[in-house]
């Protein structure tokens, strides 16, 4: 089954550098979570099992500790200018209390990271970034800060919980006077949850309705336990990063280091909708304009396997017997009961319905290009 130093095995021990812990680490261990090193953080991979957790989020609700996510705050009269320079979406379109998905760009038009930008006021933005990229993102932003603005690496001041699923709103509403119905998708407001000051955002990374709440880390254990008590009768269970990954993959969402990195552009990743050329110049906008004019050499597609084998991260994509790209993320889609994945292929081979193959342990396995996202929640 497992051999030492076998990279296919899931038993490899990653403990190397100093591992960071969220304020809920001991709770996860008490709950018997299987822990994993993710982006330098000791995080719960699963509690009751990825399939059960995935199903809970699609049909009821799940609670995730996502305190490893990084927060960067930009304040000052030049805050918008700085955000506009380093990200590709148009933050000038945000209203106070609104958030959007965006990319932190290199001067080559590729991704330093992907992130959520929250407009707290005309002079104050909260960026939520990936755990493993936080310090690098912060340095990158500071490096380009020629504005009357101050950037703060605020990760240590925040814990973050995600309550996701069709029952998330009702569960959270039991603990807060904030009228959650009036917080629309990709909007947020400040309010108390269990008497604790929170930023309550209607955002998520699962493809379901839900909320992500940001608050001071010292309240983490109490908020977790109050949310669990409120949610358990409605079938909410704690969920780990394993289910977070299968949920986001099923919803066709990109993961940094897989679909996007500092070699991929928004056009290639199918993220043209967050790349607003009308606000140019921003970092990489000249390169992105050229690429748009000259055309792409590869484009992200979704595929499903036609047989039972699973095309996983890194496996080759074969078109007419030739390697045409690599799987960026691949695995079971538990709710759809299919095996799915995303991959980069040449633009001429991206049509939905195109037959491709995935190279799995030396054999060519049939797959078909399908539309993204794989899963869309019922409205």
């Amino acid at each position, binding site marked *: *089954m497992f051999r030492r130093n076998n990279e*296919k095995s899931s038993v490899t021990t990653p403990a190397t550098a100093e591992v960071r812990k969220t304020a809920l680490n001991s709770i996860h261990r008490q709950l018997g979570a299987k822990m994993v090193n993710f982006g330098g953080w000791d995080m719960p*991979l699963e509690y009751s*099992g*990825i*399939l059960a957790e995935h199903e809970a989020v699609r049909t009821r609700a799940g609670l995730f500790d996502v305190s490893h996510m990084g927060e960067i705050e930009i304040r000052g009269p030049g805050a918008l200018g700085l955000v506009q320079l380093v990200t590709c979406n148009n933050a000038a379109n945000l209203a106070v209390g609104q958030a959007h998905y965006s990319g932190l760009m290199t001067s080559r038009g590729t991704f330093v990271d992907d992130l959520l930008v929250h407009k707290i006021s005309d002079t104050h933005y909260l960026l939520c970034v990936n755990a493993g990229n936080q310090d690098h993102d912060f340095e990158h932003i500071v490096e380009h800060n020629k504005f009357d603005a101050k950037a703060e690496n605020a990760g240590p001041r925040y814990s973050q919980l995600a309550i996701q699923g069709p029952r998330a709103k009702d569960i959270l509403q039991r603990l807060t006077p904030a009228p959650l119905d009036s917080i629309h998708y990709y909007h947020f407001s400040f309010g108390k949850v269990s008497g604790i000051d929170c930023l309550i955002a209607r955002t998520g990374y699962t493809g379901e309705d839900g909320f992500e709440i940001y608050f001071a880390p010292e309240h983490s254990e109490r908020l977790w336990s109050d949310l669990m008590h409120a949610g358990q009768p409605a079938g909410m269970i704690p969920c780990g990063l394993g289910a977070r990954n299968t949920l986001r993959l099923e919803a066709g969402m990109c993961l940094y280091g897989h679909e996007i990195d500092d070699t991929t552009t928004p056009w290639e990743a199918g993220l043209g909708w967050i790349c607003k050329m009308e606000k140019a110049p921003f970092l990489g906008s000249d390169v992105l304009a050229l690429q748009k004019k000259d055309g792409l050499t590869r484009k992200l597609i979704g595929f499903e396997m036609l047989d039972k084998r699973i095309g996983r991260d890194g496996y080759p994509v074969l078109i007419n017997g030739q390697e045409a790209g690599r799987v960026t993320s691949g*695995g079971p889609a538990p709710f759809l009961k299919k095996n799915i994945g995303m991959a980069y292929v040449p633009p001429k081979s991206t049509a939905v319905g195109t037959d491709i193959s995935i190279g799995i342990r030396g054999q060519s396995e049939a797959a078909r290009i399908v539309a993204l996202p794989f899963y869309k929640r019922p409205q």
Partner: protein
Amino acid sequence: MYPKDYRYTKEHEWVKVDGSNGTIGITDYAQHELGDVVFVEMPKVGTQLKPRQSFGTIESVKAVSEIFSPVSGEVTETNPALADSPELINKDPHAAAWLIKVKLADPKEAAGLMDAAAYEAYIAAQAKEHSA
């Protein structure tokens, strides 16, 4: 937890010897490490196995792992229940979710593997290393 009459490998397979017949599966430790199993790929009946030879794969949600034979022999049967219910491996790895049966080349060969007490000590040491 670990049946006393089975023998165990460092790669977390078990073999139960019954005369010249052997039954092979993976251990509870292995199923726990894998997480939810979603697909099992089995060898053909008649396949000749040597010790530590890969004879199939188990796909969990997270990863794919090879399964290695604890002993020499010929595959005589594969567990038909696992095609439709791979999750049996998580529920009952030491009994209902056996993987293959083999005609043993040498019924004494398995005696060289760990017994239940040695295996339990082995995984306890691994767990300690894991959390260190």
